[in-house]
């Protein structure tokens, strides 16, 4: 029998899902913290995840699932009344295997559940990610920039890599400091200043790429492709590209 983990705080939605999915074994959680206990279990075949939960954002939680290699791979269907195209795309880009808008009907829900179960989780199948001249290897946790037909390792720290991977999976999508705290530091304390420091260090290492992390007030940090950086010329390169030192970088 299929085991479905439902993460949804609305009792009426829970009741509907219990009725519609009565042929499956259901584990119902009201919050992300409650659901965390089941994530490392091998019994869960599918997760149905609401976005607006009392203790956090389902999207941030989904991002965390993608990054954490200790969590078994299972498919995730997001259900939400926030059904604008942007939200749906964000969910799918964050690793959701499908998105179901509320209100949903029984036949649609069951068809999508069966479809997702048949094909299994998609989100962990991507081992390499290339954006612009940046190449990430998710398995090796390395980030390299392609310059002069050679790859240069950016020597990211583990947390810098995780931050960058998250940003790369959500190009142009902003993450506030609170979002980042929930994704990467949910069980430890970190100050906003320390988060800013990590971002600042990461930005410095991205200087050779055609990407940048922008901080926009009221939105947060987001990664974007910076067109003018694609025409960068560096005056101090030798045959082997090296990370810039204290010399000025000229942008064209």
């Amino acid at each position, binding site marked *: 029998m299929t085991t479905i983990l439902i993460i949804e705080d609305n009792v009426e939605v829970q009741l509907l899902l219990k009725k519609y999915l009565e042929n499956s074994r259901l584990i119902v959680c009201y919050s992300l913290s409650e659901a965390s206990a089941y994530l490392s279990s091998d019994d869960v075949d599918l997760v149905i995840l609401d976005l607006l939960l009392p203790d956090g954002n389902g999207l941030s939680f989904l991002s965390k699932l993608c990054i954490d290699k200790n969590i078994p791979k299972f498919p995730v269907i997001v259900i939400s009344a926030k059904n604008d195209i942007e939200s749906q795309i964000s969910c799918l880009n964050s690793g959701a295997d499908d998105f179901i808008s509320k209100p949903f009907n*029984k036949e649609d829900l069951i068809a999508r559940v069966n479809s997702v179960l048949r094909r299994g989780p998609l989100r962990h199948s991507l081992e390499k990610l290339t954006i612009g001249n940046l190449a990430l290897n998710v398995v090796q946790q390395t980030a390299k920039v392609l310059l002069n037909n050679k790859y240069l390792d950016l020597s990211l720290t583990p947390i810098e890599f995780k931050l960058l991977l998250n940003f790369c999976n959500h190009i142009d999508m902003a993450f506030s400091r609170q979002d980042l705290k929930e994704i990467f530091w949910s069980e430890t304390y970190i100050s906003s200043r320390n988060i800013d420091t990590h971002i600042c260090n990461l930005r410095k290492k991205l200087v050779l790429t055609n990407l940048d992390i922008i901080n926009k007030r009221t939105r947060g940090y987001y990664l974007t492709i910076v067109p003018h950086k694609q025409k960068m010329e560096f005056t101090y390169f030798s045959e082997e590209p090296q990370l810039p030192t204290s010399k000025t970088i000229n942008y064209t």
Partner: protein
Amino acid sequence: MKTEIPVQREIEALSDFFINSRKKDIVSMEAYLIKENYDELEKIFHNIKGISMPYGYPTIGDLAKALEEACVKRDRESLTRNLNKLKDFLSKY
């Protein structure tokens, strides 16, 4: 038929629970409206919008959608008007 549109028998059996929950919600809505707490109101209407159709009450879903939009726009007049419509609708059950 208890609901506005036909639904599964097991769901129809929950219709009293659904309607009673909405009547309780009205109390919260009015309290939030007095305090002009549009964020909390928006959450309530957002939730109601997502569940009304499956429970067999599309009218409640439509009203919740209009109320949610009114919250986003901070349109007190529209909020009051549609809240009264919702109360009228619920009074029939």
